C-alpha cells in the first residue's frame, strides 16, 4: 500500500515552465499544426520525463498579437499580425506511442500508448489490449486498463485497477508477508484527503481470504503507512469454508484483523452466527463475535472424524 502513499505524498505537482524534448528526427507540418517526433523520443518538464518511440505534438492555432493602441504605423500593424508559428505556439497535446515510459520522482510507469494533455495537465496511459499500463513505486505495482495521472496535483484515476500491496503487512523475521491484492473498477487517489478510493466491484485478496464490496477507502498516515482499509456498502468475506457478510469491513494491517460491523453474520460449515461485531484474525484464522447469537450445528463424528 506504500505506493498509494508514495503516489500521494512524495510526488509533487509538475511545475509550469519550459518543455524540453529530444528525438532522432522532428518533422513539422505547419498546416496540420503538428510536429512528428520519431525515434528515442524524450519529453520532459521539471522532474517529469516521458520516453517513447514516436510522438505527435498538436499545437494551438496561431493567435496574432494585438496592435498596441496608438501605434498606427503600417509597419507596426504588420508586425502585430505576425503569428508565433508552429514551434512558437502552445502545445495542446502529445500522442505517445511505442514503449511509453514515464518517470516522475520515484514513480515510474510503462504503457504502450499515452496521451499527454498539456491543457488539462494530465497523462493518460493505456495498453494495447494485451498488456495493461503499469505504475510502479519501488516494489509496489499498480496496473489497470487506463491510468490517468494528474500533473498539476498528485491525484491518479485508474480504471479497473489491479494492485499488489506487498508492504501492507509489516515484514517479520520469521515470515514473509502475504501480499494483499486489490481489484476494482475504478481507483481514485486523493492526496489532500490522504485517501485511495476504490469503487465498483472491489475485491481484496490476502492469503486465503477474499473480501468483496462496492466501495473501499484506503487511508494512510503521513509516513506513507496504510492505517485502514475500509470497505462499505455491503461486504462479503470468504476464507476457506467460512463466509461472512456485513455492512462494513475494517481491515487493520498492523493488527492483521478484519472487523465486520453493521449486522455482521458469519456462516461456517452449517454454523450461523450474528453479533454486534465480528473480528477475524487473518493469520490465526481466529474469529471473535461480540454479543453473539446464532445456531451452532454439532459436527457428525462419523463424517468429520473424532472431535
Amino acid at each position, binding site marked *: 500500500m506504500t505506493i498509494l502513499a508514495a503516489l500521494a505524498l512524495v510526488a509533487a505537482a509538475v511545475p509550469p515552465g*519550459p*518543455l*524540453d*524534448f529530444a528525438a532522432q*528526427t*522532428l518533422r513539422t*507540418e505547419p*498546416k496540420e499544426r503538428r510536429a512528428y517526433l520519431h525515434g528515442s523520443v524524450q519529453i520532459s518538464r521539471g522532474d517529469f520525463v516521458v520516453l517513447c518511440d514516436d510522438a505527435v505534438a498538436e499545437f494551438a492555432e496561431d493567435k496574432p498579437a494585438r496592435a498596441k493602441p496608438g501605434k498606427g504605423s503600417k509597419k507596426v500593424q504588420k508586425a502585430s499580425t505576425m503569428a*508565433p508559428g508552429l514551434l*512558437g505556439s502552445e502545445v495542446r497535446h502529445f500522442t505517445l506511442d511505442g514503449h511509453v515510459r514515464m518517470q516522475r520522482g520515484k514513480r515510474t510507469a510503462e504503457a504502450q500508448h499515452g496521451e499527454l494533455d498539456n491543457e488539462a495537465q494530465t497523462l493518460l496511459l493505456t495498453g494495447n489490449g494485451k498488456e495493461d499500463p503499469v505504475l510502479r513505486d519501488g516494489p509496489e505495482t499498480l496496473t489497470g486498463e487506463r491510468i490517468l495521472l494528474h500533473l498539476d496535483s498528485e491525484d491518479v484515476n485508474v480504471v479497473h485497477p489491479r494492485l499488489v500491496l506487498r508492504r501492507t503487512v509489516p515484514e517479520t523475521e520469521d515470515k514473509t508477508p502475504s501480499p494483499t491484492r486489490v481489484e476494482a473498477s475504478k481507483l481514485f487517489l486523493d492526496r489532500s484527503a490522504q485517501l485511495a478510493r476504490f469503487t465498483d466491484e472491489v475485491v481484496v485478496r490476502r492469503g486465503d481470504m477474499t473480501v468483496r464490496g462496492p466501495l473501499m477507502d484506503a487511508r494512510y498516515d503521513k509516513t506513507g503507512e496504510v492505517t485502514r482499509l475500509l470497505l462499505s456498502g455491503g461486504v462479503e468475506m470468504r476464507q476457506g469454508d467460512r463466509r461472512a457478510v456485513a455492512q462494513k469491513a475494517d481491515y487493520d494491517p498492523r493488527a492483521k484483523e478484519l472487523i465486520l460491523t453493521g449486522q455482521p453474520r458469519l456462516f461456517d460449515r452449517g454454523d450461523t452466527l450474528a453479533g454486534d461485531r465480528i473480528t477475524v484474525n487473518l493469520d490465526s484464522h481466529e474469529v471473535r463475535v461480540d454479543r453473539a447469537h446464532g445456531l451452532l450445528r454439532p459436527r457428525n463424528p462419523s463424517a468429520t472424524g473424532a472431535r
Partner: protein
Amino acid sequence: MSEASLPPEGPADLILQEVAFARFSDGKISSRGTAEELSYRRSAGRLLASQAALRLPARPGSGLAPLGLLHLSAPRVEAETTARRGVGSHGVRLDSERGDRARTDRVSYDGARELVTSDTPLSAEGPGYRVRSRGFVARADGSEVQLVGGVSGRLDERGR
C-alpha cells in the same frame, strides 16, 4: 549537396564588387540582396558570391509566412543558375522579422525539387522555442521541415 559537387572553377566572365541586386517576379520586387563580390561564369551558368545577404519576404499563406521578412546571409554562396541549385557555406544565417534565428555551417538549395537541406549542425531559436539538430531537410515554402540526425529543443510556455 556538398561544395565538391559543383563543377571546378574556370576564369570568371564577369566580376562585380559591392553588388546590390533585386529579383523581379510578376512585375514586383520579390527579393533584394547584396554581396561583397560576385563572379559569374557564363558557360557553366555559375555564380560565386562572397558575403552575400538576401532579404526575402515570405509568401503569404506559406509555411514561412508567420516569420515575416526573412534575412538570409552566408559568407560564401555558389549557385548554378541552369540547374537551379546553390550552396551557402561558411556559416549560414537566417533571421526573421518575427525574431527567429537559425545558424548552420552549410545549406544547399535544390530548385528543381524545391528542397533546402543541410548536413551540418543546426541551431535555431525564436519566440517560445529553441531547437538543435545535426541537419535538416525542408521544403522551400516551409510547408514541411524535418530536423534529422538527433534533435533536442525546448518549448518555453512562459515566453509566449
